[in-house]
């Protein structure tokens, strides 16, 4: 049995480490490219979103590389993604890619026993005992968390770094080394090492960078190809930002704490109190957090045709009026050229920076009893 799964952010990086720890080989398709997107679009329904098209292309390539079994975390239902497993299966079957499918749904959807059966199926090739596998699973989660921490710190520190690109380089170097890591222990060591080095990056604390919140549709958030590497772009622009929707975030929500009992009270919002599918409710909650914690603005990212995020966008429009939020919605499409996106994001960052500068200037002027008269600010 040769296992594969579609790309989503670091899933393959981490999946490889986990499966090699328990003695299973996985097949990693090449990273997402424009060419892959073209292939994927060729066999997918036209109106379906980018994540689907990319996944189809990944799996087709994995098949050619010798994979025969697909693991698909389908999480039944939050959006079309819940049906993706089935749709992918029927498309790939008809195109002559007969995979064996293991669809991992949440236990509310398929029952505890069925989920357990499917999970055992995944690791049926492993020669390790149950206890060992469980331990490897827990340790892998630690790797995910550590990598998340590295990203998080880099996103914040990027606004303060003295020499442009230091943080970005550290994160890229870490990912490169992780690709060759032999096991979990080494992976943890590599990430710690880079985290240490990241904390030593020379910083300029006099800088007052913008604090932004990056949020939106989950696949676009986690897979850099689907958001045109927006994180790198923002880091290059010298913005401090936070991205809370990550692989670890998804695991915490769906696997570890599916009812979110702990933060129930903190997350209630009067704008969209019900789940309408996808993660629209969660995106709106991010907006609420943003206005509460005093971020300078939000960038919402989603692929064309993502219904739940369109609803969230409409809610944001209301929040912009009522809470004086600044929101930029970037909708990624396979047809769009890159220049337009960059212009929009740049203009948004510029706008917030100028406003921030003007505000501090006004406060200063108020103290000195003068009014700012510079045009253009």
């Amino acid at each position, binding site marked *: 049995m040769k296992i594969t799964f579609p790309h989503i952010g670091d899933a393959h990086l981490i999946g490889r480490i986990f499966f090699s720890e328990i003695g299973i080989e996985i097949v990693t398709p090449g990273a997402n490219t424009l060419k892959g997107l073209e292939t994927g679009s060729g066999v997918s329904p036209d109106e379906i979103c980018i994540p689907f098209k990319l996944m189809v292309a990944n799996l087709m390539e994995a098949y050619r590389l010798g994979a025969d079994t697909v693991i698909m975390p389908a999480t039944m239902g939050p959006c079309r993604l819940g049906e993706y497993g089935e749709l992918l299966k029927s498309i790939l079957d008809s195109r002559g890619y007969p995979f064996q499918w293991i669809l991992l749904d949440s236990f509310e959807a398929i029952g505890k026993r069925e989920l357990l059966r499917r999970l055992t199926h995944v690791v049926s090739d492993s020669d390790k005992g149950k206890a060992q596998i469980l331990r490897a699973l827990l340790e892998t989660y630690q790797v995910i968390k550590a990598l998340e921490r590295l990203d998080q710190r880099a996103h914040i520190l990027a606004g303060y770094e003295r020499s442009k690109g230091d943080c970005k380089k550290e994160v*890229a170097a870490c990912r490169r080394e992780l690709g060759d890591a032999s096991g979990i222990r080494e992976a943890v060591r590599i990430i710690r090492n880079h985290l240490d080095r990241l904390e030593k990056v020379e910083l300029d604390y006099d800088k007052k960078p913008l604090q932004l919140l990056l949020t939106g549709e989950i696949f676009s958030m986690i897979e850099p190809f689907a958001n045109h590497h927006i994180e790198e772009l923002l880091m290059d622009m010298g913005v401090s930002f936070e991205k809370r929707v990550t692989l670890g975030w998804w695991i915490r929500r769906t696997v570890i704490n599916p009812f979110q009992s702990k933060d129930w009270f903190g997350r209630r919002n009067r704008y969209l109190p019900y789940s309408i599918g996808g993660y629209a409710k969660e995106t709106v909650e991010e907006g609420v957090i943003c206005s509460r914690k005093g971020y300078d603005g939000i960038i919402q990212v989603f692929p064309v045709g993502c219904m739940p995020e369109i609803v969230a966008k409409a809610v944001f429009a209301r929040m912009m009026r009522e809470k004086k939020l600044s929101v930029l919605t970037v909708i990624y499409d396979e047809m769009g050229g890159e220049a*337009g996106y*960059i212009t*929009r994001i*740049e203009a*948004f960052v510029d*706008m917030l920076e100028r406003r921030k500068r003007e505000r501090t200037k006004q406060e200063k002027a108020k103290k000195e009893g003068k009014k700012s008269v510079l045009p*253009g600010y």
Partner: protein
Amino acid sequence: MYYLGIDVGSVSTDLVIMDEENKILDQLYLKTKGNPIEAVKDGLRQLGRKYQNDEIAGVGTTGSGRTLAAAVAGADAVKNEITAHGVAAATFDPEIRTIIEIGGQDSKIILLRDGVITDFAMNTVCAAGTGSFLDRQAERLGMEIGEMGGYALRAENPVRIAGRCAVFAESDIIHKQQLGCTMEDIIGGMSKALVRNYLSNVAKGKEIIPKVCFQGGVAANSGIRRALEESLGCEILVPEYHKVMGAYGAAVLARELIGEGNKKTRFKGFEAGYDDIRTETFECADCSNHCEVVILRSGGKQIGCFSDRCGKYQTNTADS
């Protein structure tokens, strides 16, 4: 001392020379014709006949070809067109609160409050209602683009044209022609359709408060201007230099930047207009990103490099 602003757009490349008091001394409006490097060089050559290198204290570039122009001319401020247009209008008249900008391929709305940009929107993938569409229709109807405004103003009963999509609009125009409608009524209807499309697409949900400023190449079209005035019910201001407002904004931004830090300009001199600039494009295969890297060379020296995500082909560290 003067400041040079360059705006490289899809249709036109504009250059502006501005003095310390933000006054425009000279403006050039050149057609890009798909070759932005040549257009910038041509502009530099033309301005070089009138001005000296040491008179230029700073250079700003904007527009979709801003990084290219910055590599060719050597720029201090490289800014996106939204910021540039906003700053230009705020400098031109601090009371402007709404900017409608319709260019060759994109249309935007920018909201200013107290001279600060507070919100903006740009058209999405569709180019209906922008300059290229007008250009194409003018060509099809066999008239100069400059004449279209006059036709629209003479319209007595503007016909209704579907303006949502450029392709459908064109077939609708052909249909109205076959029905025997006059050219004036068709063009008048088309102007109205474009404005309707702009207001319901780009300006959707935005609060349009006077003073409204209309700039960009399409602002030259008096028919569109009148249609806008009728729909919005307020007077629309078209600045004298509406065509080159982007370049003007870039020049203002360069002045601000140079003035703030007392910096020396990176301007390469008007001779750059005579440089032999070659571009080289290749797909880098060193990692899975497969970036299409573009390298600009002038006389064997690399003067610019774009689209490499990792930054390994960058030699000069010109920051924006």
